[in-house]
């Protein structure tokens, strides 16, 4: 009887096989065989150890020793469950995502994730409680903190936020001697904070989306006042509260105690927000040196990351429904890449780039080879570009705007040579006609003898895109536009 469960789940599991990790059983066998025991003796010993080592006896009955498993092992198992669920709730694995959605499993899996998170929060808090007691100097030498089902599972006696408080601070608060001495707030709202995988192209390492960031935190320092003028300005207790939708959360996300005279801080952080399972129970307990003021908290990147962790859920972005259209383009046919203007005013560069004198530009030309039947050494001028500049002539203007002008008829024919930037002047241009005569001059603001008064096309950059706006034949406005590469120039005619 062979049974296949979800093949895709199993395929993932299958390759643990390849890791070659040894089991307790194998290690036991090796050690027992080394004692010279027979195979049957080894089998008996292994089974017997399951009783005498893994269980305890009371009134002739054996029960598993739950406390023998370090609490961190339970936490690791829950992390694994959470990661399994989270892994398949993401959309990176298209095959899995399709399975989940086809069978309508997503909401139940999210529920499973929520349940695992509640259990995890309780287990982690029980684990951290021991750590907190040690750091605060409240545990006795050698005291062990193993898995205790009553502490974690019982509704009556479970670990809570109260286990992470300081009796000294609580007493001072009650007696009125704990007073606020410093305060700071920290707020960041960033639309483009970090790149994340593009759910539409999960396998493409160069495809990405921007993820935003929003953090809002209020940090308050308190001092226990036993005299009117304390000898130091350092807080005895620092508390941080997240602000969500303009409201401070009901419980502090950060508690910082200073249990010893050497000012080593014991920091308790709850990374879960008010609407998340685990809110109120810590996710991290650590010791930090050099914490003197509320500003020191803001300087500590680790604390801020723990207070505002990036959740897997935030990365679960369903791919957009994709559509496509069939296009058959035979070589030689062109596609219309132009976008028509939405009104009669046509497309415009949406920002100012000319100075008051309208003279902040350099000329830019690209002579093209002369036409068929003409001297191959000759060139002709398709356009003259005015490349607008910014703070000086070497810096492009906002949007790196380039206007393209057509030359007047007499300068549009074949030439021996055409040169711009003559003598280093960015507005000077010269033409050498086929008979050897030379004309040069300046293309200045206003009417010019060399080029038409109005540009026929303009290129500019807006955000991440470079646009090309152009007048159709007979049009007085830029009636069409297209997106182009930054190096786009007018096509030679």
């Amino acid at each position, binding site marked *: 009887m062979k049974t296949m469960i*979800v093949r895709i789940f199993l395929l993932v599991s299958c390759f643990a096989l390849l890791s070659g990790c040894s089991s307790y059983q194998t290690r036991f066998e090796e050690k027992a065989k080394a004692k010279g025991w027979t195979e049957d003796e080894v089998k008996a010993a292994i089974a017997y150890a399951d*009783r005498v080592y893994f269980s305890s006896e009371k009134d002739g009955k054996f029960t598993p020793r739950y406390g023998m498993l370090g609490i961190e092992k339970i936490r690791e198992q829950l992390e694994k469950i959470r990661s399994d669920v989270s892994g398949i709730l993401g959309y990176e694995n298209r095959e899995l995502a399709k399975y989940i959605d086809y*069978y309508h499993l997503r909401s139940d899996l999210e529920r499973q994730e929520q349940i695992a998170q509640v259990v995890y929060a309780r287990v982690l808090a029980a684990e951290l409680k021991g750590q907190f007691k040690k750091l605060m100097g409240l545990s006795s030498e050698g005291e062990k903190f193993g898995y205790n089902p009553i502490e974690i599972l019982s509704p009556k006696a479970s670990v809570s936020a109260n286990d992470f408080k300081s009796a000294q601070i609580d007493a001072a608060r009650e007696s009125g001697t704990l007073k606020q001495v410093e305060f700071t707030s920290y707020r960041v709202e960033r639309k483009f904070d970090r790149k994340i995988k593009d759910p539409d192209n999960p396998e493409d390492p160069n495809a990405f989306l921007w993820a935003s960031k929003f953090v809002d935190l209020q940090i308050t320092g308190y001092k226990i006042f036993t005299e009117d003028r304390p000898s130091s300005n350092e807080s005895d207790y620092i508390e941080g509260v997240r602000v969500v939708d303009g409201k401070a959360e009901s419980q502090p996300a950060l508690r910082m105690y200073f249990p010893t005279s050497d000012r080593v801080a014991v920091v308790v952080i709850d990374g879960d927000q008010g609407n998340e399972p685990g809110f109120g129970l810590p996710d991290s307990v650590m010791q930090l040196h050099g914490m003197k003021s509320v500003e020191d908290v803001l300087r500590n990147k680790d604390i801020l990351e723990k207070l505002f962790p990036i959740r897997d859920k935030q990365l679960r972005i369903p791919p957009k429904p994709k559509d496509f259209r069939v296009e058959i383009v035979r070589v030689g046919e062109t596609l219309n890449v132009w976008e028509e203007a939405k009104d009669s005013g046509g497309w415009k560069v949406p920002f100012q780039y000319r100075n008051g004198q309208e003279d902040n530009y350099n000329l830019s030309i690209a002579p093209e080879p002369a036409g068929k039947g003409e001297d191959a050494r000759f060139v002709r001028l398709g356009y003259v570009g005015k490349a607008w500049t910014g703070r000086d002539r070497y810096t492009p203007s906002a949007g790196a705007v380039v206007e393209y002008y057509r030359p007047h008829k007499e300068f549009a024919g074949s030439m021996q040579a055409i040169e711009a930037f003559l003598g280093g002047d960015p507005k000077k241009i010269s033409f050498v006609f086929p008979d050897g005569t030379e004309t040069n001059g300046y293309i200045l603001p206003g009417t010019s003898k060399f080029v038409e008064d109005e540009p026929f096309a303009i290129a500019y950059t807006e955000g991440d895109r470079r646009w090309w706006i152009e007048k159709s034949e007979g049009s007085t406005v830029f009636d069409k536009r297209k997106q182009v590469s930054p190096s786009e120039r007018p096509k030679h005619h």
Partner: protein
Amino acid sequence: MLRKASLTLFLITLFASFPTFAKELPFYFPPGVVSTTDPMRQLQEYYRYMAAMDLCNQPSRDRRYQLIPGSDSVRVVTDIVSTSSITESSAKLTIILDNYVRIDGKIRVTSLCDQRFISERELQVVVDDLREQTKIAARRNFEYYRELTNLSVSALAGNVGLTSDEVRKYLDEKIPGYDVTYREFWYIPKPMRESDFVPRELHLGFTPSSDGGILAATWLNTGVIYYNPVARVSDYLQGIPKVLQHEMIHVNVNLQKFPLNNGFDVELSASIPVMLYPEDKIGFFFHGYSSLLREFAHTFFGYNFEQVRDEVVRVDLEGNLIFDEEKFRSRLQELESIKSELLVFFQNKALPEFYSNPVWWMSMNQVRNDPNSVFRIMMANNYDLTILGGHEKTMLWLKIHEPEILEIADEAFKEEGEQEGGYVLDVNIPAFLRVQYEKVLTPQEREELEKYFRENPEKLKGLVSFPKKLVEFIDSFVANQRKGGAQ
């Protein structure tokens, strides 16, 4: 003694064979199929049916297919309630005959080796049979698991310092401050219903792109079971729908559900109770999923399978196994008391213990790298050992060596986490995969593949997220190996 045993066997066989004359069998049954609880006959016939049906119902490594069961497949919505799935919490069992299509008033059936027409009446027999087997399987599973919740509650109560009634009172209450009930928090199964075992969709079909040898498949959380015609015939042979019962334990989200399925041996769990039933004579003895049960039978109850195998197979003539039939019958009969003891042990002790605190047991499984820690530890806590020449001798030897055993256990347990190197995926290996992996690839191919992934852990890491690519990679890797070997 021998005479008495044989007589009993005869009576059981006669009883079990009786229903075969009562009704018409589905058309896909090979002619002359019997139902029997005689161990020898069951084994002989099992191999014959497999040989007779394999080609038309099972793909193989070199003969894989793709099929598209769809809107033209014959579907019958029954009146049997299914509450097994997440997909639809209360549904009616739908029987789907994947490759049965109505054409011109007839029903065309496609198998993996032929295509033929059957009549409406033949179709009705197939559907009625599946409907009936599902009801029987659901009833049998329910009878076995009906007290699981209560027993798990009792086991949990002792561990959290509450009475069973107190635990029961809390079960459906929400934990203060959370939108999660204590039942969910404790992972205690809901009170079992017969409908929890009924699939939402029961397909009579194949797993055409697998490597073969799959009698049935369950897609977790969805309520979908694929039941191969070979499985139905095998179930008929044993007189109980054991393959179907096994799948219907997988399908029950109250018992097996992602993500908890990754933390324990779902195959062994789904093999209980079926492989312990007296009707199934061969599963306990031969099936890969019951290897731990055989280990228990040997270590705790003294039943030596290796010796029995050696005794009963007299000679192997190139695949023709000549058995000592009487010896086989009597040895198999001796196993019955063990099976019946284990049937009760799992029902009342081991399974309730697991379901009373599954997260702790999954953690223990992880630490020991053993998906069956709960069963091993609970066996040791409930039975003395007898493997070393009887109870007295064994327990005396163990008492004498107890200090050494404790020392070894402590060392072996604390060495947990030290791996032999390479990339380690933090998951348990389901028995199904273990069997498939070993069956499909040769030892040399496995060694080469494992060596490659040990040397290129990042490759494995990259591939596991994309199962299709992983399978393609393994296929091409193995193909290249074979090509290399041929040259």
